[in-house]
Protein backbone atom coordinates (compact mmCIF):
# COMPACT_ATOMS: atom_id res chain seq x y z
CA UNK A 1 0.00 0.00 0.00
CA UNK A 2 1.30 3.38 -0.95
CA UNK A 3 0.74 6.15 1.53
CA UNK A 4 -0.25 9.55 0.32
CA UNK A 5 2.57 12.01 0.63
CA UNK A 6 2.12 14.39 3.54
CA UNK A 7 2.74 18.09 3.25
CA UNK A 8 6.26 17.72 4.68
CA UNK A 9 7.10 15.17 1.95
CA UNK A 10 5.85 17.37 -0.87
CA UNK A 11 7.69 20.47 0.23
CA UNK A 12 11.47 20.50 0.27
CA UNK A 13 13.04 20.01 3.67
CA UNK A 14 13.44 23.60 4.90
CA UNK A 15 16.81 22.90 6.51
CA UNK A 16 18.11 21.26 3.34
CA UNK A 17 16.65 24.01 1.17
CA UNK A 18 18.32 26.62 3.35
CA UNK A 19 21.66 24.82 3.09
CA UNK A 20 21.37 24.65 -0.70
CA UNK A 21 20.41 28.30 -0.80
CA UNK A 22 23.41 29.24 1.34
CA UNK A 23 25.75 27.17 -0.83
CA UNK A 24 24.46 28.85 -3.96
CA UNK A 25 24.79 32.33 -2.48
CA UNK A 26 28.28 31.50 -1.22
CA UNK A 27 29.25 30.41 -4.74
CA UNK A 28 27.96 33.70 -6.14
CA UNK A 29 30.00 35.56 -3.53
CA UNK A 30 33.10 33.47 -4.29
CA UNK A 31 32.82 34.16 -8.01
CA UNK A 32 32.16 37.83 -7.28
CA UNK A 33 35.51 37.98 -5.46
CA UNK A 34 37.29 36.90 -8.67
CA UNK A 35 36.10 40.00 -10.56
CA UNK A 36 38.63 42.72 -11.30
CA UNK A 37 38.17 45.63 -8.86
CA UNK A 38 37.33 47.98 -11.73
CA UNK A 39 34.12 46.02 -12.21
CA UNK A 40 33.56 44.66 -8.71
CA UNK A 41 33.40 48.02 -6.91
CA UNK A 42 30.59 49.59 -9.01
CA UNK A 43 28.66 46.31 -8.93
CA UNK A 44 28.98 46.03 -5.14
CA UNK A 45 27.92 49.63 -4.59
CA UNK A 46 24.87 49.32 -6.85
CA UNK A 47 23.73 45.75 -6.12
CA UNK A 48 24.60 45.32 -2.45
CA UNK A 49 24.69 48.87 -1.09
CA UNK A 50 21.83 49.83 -3.44
CA UNK A 51 23.33 53.17 -4.42
CA UNK A 52 22.17 54.89 -7.58
CA UNK A 53 24.48 55.08 -10.59
CA UNK A 54 24.84 58.83 -9.99
CA UNK A 55 25.94 58.24 -6.39
CA UNK A 56 28.47 55.64 -7.48
CA UNK A 57 29.74 57.99 -10.19
CA UNK A 58 30.21 60.66 -7.56
CA UNK A 59 32.07 58.31 -5.21
CA UNK A 60 34.36 56.92 -7.88
CA UNK A 61 34.73 60.27 -9.62
CA UNK A 62 33.88 58.85 -13.03
CA UNK A 63 31.10 59.71 -15.51
CA UNK A 64 27.77 57.99 -14.89
CA UNK A 65 28.07 56.33 -18.31
CA UNK A 66 31.25 54.64 -17.11
CA UNK A 67 29.40 53.28 -14.06
CA UNK A 68 26.65 51.97 -16.32
CA UNK A 69 29.16 50.27 -18.60
CA UNK A 70 31.15 48.76 -15.71
CA UNK A 71 28.05 47.43 -13.95
CA UNK A 72 26.92 45.83 -17.20
CA UNK A 73 30.35 44.29 -17.86
CA UNK A 74 30.62 43.12 -14.24
CA UNK A 75 27.30 41.29 -14.37
CA UNK A 76 28.09 39.73 -17.76
CA UNK A 77 31.43 38.58 -16.39
CA UNK A 78 29.76 37.19 -13.29
CA UNK A 79 27.15 35.32 -15.37
CA UNK A 80 29.89 33.95 -17.60
CA UNK A 81 31.97 32.67 -14.68
CA UNK A 82 28.92 31.27 -12.85
CA UNK A 83 28.02 29.40 -16.04
CA UNK A 84 31.46 27.76 -15.98
CA UNK A 85 32.91 29.66 -18.91
CA UNK A 86 30.02 29.21 -21.31
CA UNK A 87 28.76 32.15 -23.35
CA UNK A 88 25.49 33.40 -21.84
Amino acid sequence: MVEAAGPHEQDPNPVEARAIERAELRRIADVFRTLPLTFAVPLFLTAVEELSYAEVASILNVPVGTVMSRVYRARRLLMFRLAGGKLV
Partner: protein
Amino acid sequence: MKVCTPHREFLAAIADGETALVPADTLEHVRGCADCSSEVRAHRLLASRLRQAGTTLVEAEPSRRPMPLARGRLRLIAAGIAGAIVLGAAGVGWFALSRPDPIVAAVNASSQPMQIESSDPSQVGEWCLQASGRTLPAIQLDGMQVVGARMDRADSTDIVTVMYAAPSGERVTVSWLEGQAPVGSGVEGRNISGHDLLIVHAAVGTAVITGTSTGAMWQTAAAIESARI
Protein backbone atom coordinates in the same frame (compact mmCIF):
# COMPACT_ATOMS: atom_id res chain seq x y z
CA MET B 1 26.63 43.88 -36.12
CA LYS B 2 23.53 42.42 -34.50
CA VAL B 3 20.64 44.83 -34.10
CA CYS B 4 20.82 44.35 -30.30
CA THR B 5 24.51 45.23 -30.00
CA PRO B 6 24.23 49.02 -29.54
CA HIS B 7 21.57 48.54 -26.87
CA ARG B 8 23.27 45.87 -24.78
CA GLU B 9 25.34 48.10 -22.47
CA PHE B 10 22.12 49.72 -21.26
CA LEU B 11 20.46 46.48 -20.17
CA ALA B 12 21.94 46.51 -16.66
CA ALA B 13 20.76 50.10 -16.20
CA ILE B 14 17.24 49.11 -17.25
CA ALA B 15 17.30 46.19 -14.82
CA ASP B 16 18.39 48.57 -12.06
CA GLY B 17 15.58 51.02 -12.82
CA GLU B 18 18.00 53.68 -14.08
CA THR B 19 15.85 54.30 -17.15
CA ALA B 20 16.52 58.05 -17.13
CA LEU B 21 20.03 57.20 -18.35
CA VAL B 22 18.78 55.01 -21.20
CA PRO B 23 18.05 56.40 -24.69
CA ALA B 24 14.41 56.20 -25.76
CA ASP B 25 15.23 54.05 -28.81
CA THR B 26 16.91 51.48 -26.54
CA LEU B 27 13.86 51.32 -24.25
CA GLU B 28 11.68 50.84 -27.30
CA HIS B 29 13.98 48.15 -28.71
CA VAL B 30 14.07 46.22 -25.43
CA ARG B 31 10.27 46.29 -25.13
CA GLY B 32 9.98 44.44 -28.44
CA CYS B 33 13.07 42.19 -28.21
CA ALA B 34 12.74 38.82 -26.47
CA ASP B 35 16.53 38.37 -26.18
CA CYS B 36 17.15 41.74 -24.57
CA SER B 37 14.11 41.42 -22.28
CA SER B 38 15.39 38.04 -21.17
CA GLU B 39 18.82 39.49 -20.43
CA VAL B 40 17.26 42.34 -18.43
CA ARG B 41 15.50 39.71 -16.31
CA ALA B 42 18.80 37.86 -15.86
CA HIS B 43 20.49 41.08 -14.71
CA ARG B 44 17.64 41.77 -12.30
CA LEU B 45 17.79 38.24 -10.88
CA LEU B 46 21.56 38.36 -10.49
CA ALA B 47 21.37 41.74 -8.72
CA SER B 48 18.82 40.29 -6.33
CA ARG B 49 20.96 37.20 -5.68
CA LEU B 50 24.02 39.39 -5.06
CA ARG B 51 22.09 41.41 -2.51
CA GLN B 52 21.04 38.17 -0.79
CA ALA B 53 24.59 36.82 -1.02
CA GLY B 54 25.81 39.91 0.79
CA THR B 55 23.20 39.48 3.54
CA THR B 56 23.65 35.74 3.92
CA LEU B 57 27.41 35.87 4.12
CA VAL B 58 27.30 38.69 6.60
CA GLU B 59 24.94 36.62 8.79
CA ALA B 60 27.23 33.61 8.51
CA GLU B 61 30.42 35.54 9.15
CA PRO B 62 29.81 38.24 11.75
CA SER B 63 33.42 39.38 11.53
CA ARG B 64 32.72 40.59 7.99
CA ARG B 65 29.50 42.35 8.93
CA PRO B 66 29.43 45.82 7.39
CA MET B 67 27.65 48.70 9.06
CA PRO B 68 24.27 49.56 7.54
CA LEU B 69 24.77 52.20 4.91
CA ALA B 70 23.46 55.66 5.54
CA ARG B 71 23.66 58.34 2.88
CA GLY B 72 26.06 60.22 5.15
CA ARG B 73 28.50 57.37 4.76
CA LEU B 74 29.03 58.13 1.08
CA ARG B 75 31.99 60.35 1.82
CA LEU B 76 33.39 57.68 4.11
CA ILE B 77 33.05 55.09 1.36
CA ALA B 78 34.71 57.45 -1.11
CA ALA B 79 37.55 58.03 1.32
CA GLY B 80 37.84 54.30 1.93
CA ILE B 81 38.01 53.48 -1.75
CA ALA B 82 40.54 56.26 -2.34
CA GLY B 83 42.58 54.92 0.58
CA ALA B 84 42.40 51.41 -0.80
CA ILE B 85 43.66 52.65 -4.16
CA VAL B 86 46.57 54.45 -2.50
CA LEU B 87 47.38 51.45 -0.32
CA GLY B 88 47.07 49.20 -3.35
CA ALA B 89 49.55 51.31 -5.28
CA ALA B 90 51.95 51.35 -2.34
CA GLY B 91 51.61 47.62 -1.93
CA VAL B 92 52.40 46.79 -5.52
CA GLY B 93 56.11 46.43 -4.85
CA TRP B 94 55.61 44.05 -1.94
CA PHE B 95 52.84 42.21 -3.78
CA ALA B 96 55.04 41.69 -6.84
CA LEU B 97 57.57 39.88 -4.66
CA SER B 98 55.06 37.70 -2.83
CA ARG B 99 52.52 36.76 -5.52
CA PRO B 100 52.88 33.79 -7.89
CA ASP B 101 54.85 34.72 -10.98
CA PRO B 102 52.32 35.39 -13.78
CA ILE B 103 54.95 34.44 -16.38
CA VAL B 104 55.23 30.94 -14.89
CA ALA B 105 51.42 30.76 -14.69
CA ALA B 106 51.22 31.76 -18.36
CA VAL B 107 53.66 29.01 -19.33
CA ASN B 108 51.60 26.49 -17.37
CA ALA B 109 48.39 27.74 -19.00
CA SER B 110 49.84 27.30 -22.47
CA SER B 111 50.02 23.53 -22.03
CA GLN B 112 46.43 23.20 -20.79
CA PRO B 113 43.46 22.35 -23.05
CA MET B 114 41.64 25.23 -24.70
CA GLN B 115 38.28 26.16 -23.15
CA ILE B 116 36.94 27.35 -26.48
CA GLU B 117 38.03 25.94 -29.82
CA SER B 118 37.25 28.05 -32.85
CA SER B 119 39.01 29.42 -35.92
CA ASP B 120 36.74 32.47 -35.89
CA PRO B 121 38.67 35.40 -34.34
CA SER B 122 35.46 37.31 -33.55
CA GLN B 123 33.99 34.32 -31.68
CA VAL B 124 37.23 33.81 -29.74
CA GLY B 125 37.35 37.55 -29.07
CA GLU B 126 33.80 37.53 -27.70
CA TRP B 127 34.65 34.56 -25.48
CA CYS B 128 37.75 36.33 -24.18
CA LEU B 129 35.71 39.47 -23.50
CA GLN B 130 33.21 37.50 -21.47
CA ALA B 131 35.87 35.42 -19.71
CA SER B 132 38.05 38.33 -18.67
CA GLY B 133 35.78 41.36 -18.93
CA ARG B 134 38.25 43.13 -21.17
CA THR B 135 38.91 43.35 -24.86
CA LEU B 136 42.22 41.74 -25.75
CA PRO B 137 44.72 44.05 -27.43
CA ALA B 138 44.95 41.78 -30.45
CA ILE B 139 43.22 38.55 -31.43
CA GLN B 140 43.90 38.43 -35.14
CA LEU B 141 47.64 38.43 -35.80
CA ASP B 142 49.18 38.68 -39.26
CA GLY B 143 49.87 35.28 -40.76
CA MET B 144 48.47 33.34 -37.78
CA GLN B 145 45.26 31.29 -37.61
CA VAL B 146 43.32 31.42 -34.34
CA VAL B 147 42.62 27.97 -32.91
CA GLY B 148 41.12 28.62 -29.47
CA ALA B 149 41.53 30.23 -26.07
CA ARG B 150 41.47 29.66 -22.31
CA MET B 151 41.37 31.82 -19.17
CA ASP B 152 43.42 31.31 -16.02
CA ARG B 153 44.11 33.24 -12.86
CA ALA B 154 47.38 33.52 -10.98
CA ASP B 155 46.49 35.03 -7.63
CA SER B 156 44.60 38.13 -8.76
CA THR B 157 46.01 38.33 -12.29
CA ASP B 158 43.80 37.20 -15.15
CA ILE B 159 45.72 35.45 -17.92
CA VAL B 160 43.96 35.05 -21.25
CA THR B 161 45.73 32.60 -23.53
CA VAL B 162 45.00 32.42 -27.25
CA MET B 163 46.32 29.54 -29.33
CA TYR B 164 47.34 29.97 -32.97
CA ALA B 165 48.49 27.80 -35.85
CA ALA B 166 51.35 29.22 -37.89
CA PRO B 167 51.40 28.71 -41.69
CA SER B 168 53.93 25.93 -41.09
CA GLY B 169 51.36 24.15 -38.92
CA GLU B 170 53.30 24.80 -35.71
CA ARG B 171 51.26 25.78 -32.64
CA VAL B 172 51.94 29.02 -30.78
CA THR B 173 50.21 30.36 -27.67
CA VAL B 174 49.97 33.99 -26.64
CA SER B 175 49.11 34.69 -22.99
CA TRP B 176 48.02 38.25 -22.27
CA LEU B 177 48.71 39.36 -18.72
CA GLU B 178 46.04 41.58 -17.21
CA GLY B 179 47.20 44.76 -15.59
CA GLN B 180 50.81 44.34 -16.64
CA ALA B 181 51.79 47.76 -17.87
CA PRO B 182 54.33 47.54 -20.67
CA VAL B 183 57.84 47.74 -19.23
CA GLY B 184 59.71 49.55 -21.96
CA SER B 185 59.42 47.78 -25.26
CA GLY B 186 60.96 44.89 -27.08
CA VAL B 187 61.12 41.13 -26.86
CA GLU B 188 62.80 39.23 -24.06
CA GLY B 189 63.78 35.56 -24.35
CA ARG B 190 63.63 33.29 -21.30
CA ASN B 191 63.69 29.62 -20.40
CA ILE B 192 61.44 28.45 -17.58
CA SER B 193 61.48 24.80 -16.53
CA GLY B 194 62.84 23.79 -19.90
CA HIS B 195 60.30 25.84 -21.88
CA ASP B 196 61.63 28.51 -24.21
CA LEU B 197 59.41 31.57 -24.21
CA LEU B 198 59.31 35.12 -25.41
CA ILE B 199 57.93 38.04 -23.41
CA VAL B 200 56.69 40.84 -25.62
CA HIS B 201 56.47 44.30 -24.09
CA ALA B 202 54.43 46.05 -26.77
CA ALA B 203 52.43 49.24 -26.84
CA VAL B 204 49.25 47.17 -26.72
CA GLY B 205 50.23 45.20 -23.60
CA THR B 206 52.45 42.46 -22.25
CA ALA B 207 52.22 38.95 -23.69
CA VAL B 208 54.02 35.67 -23.08
CA ILE B 209 54.60 33.55 -26.18
CA THR B 210 55.32 29.84 -26.10
CA GLY B 211 55.32 27.33 -28.91
CA THR B 212 56.81 24.35 -30.63
CA SER B 213 58.83 26.39 -33.11
CA THR B 214 61.18 29.26 -32.30
CA GLY B 215 60.59 30.70 -35.77
CA ALA B 216 56.82 30.75 -35.32
CA MET B 217 57.23 32.31 -31.87
CA TRP B 218 59.34 35.16 -33.28
CA GLN B 219 56.86 35.60 -36.13
CA THR B 220 54.10 35.96 -33.52
CA ALA B 221 56.17 38.42 -31.49
CA ALA B 222 56.68 40.54 -34.59
CA ALA B 223 52.94 40.45 -35.32
CA ILE B 224 52.15 41.62 -31.76
CA GLU B 225 54.71 44.39 -31.88
CA SER B 226 53.20 45.68 -35.10
CA ALA B 227 49.64 45.53 -33.70
CA ARG B 228 48.07 48.82 -32.76
CA ILE B 229 45.50 49.62 -30.06
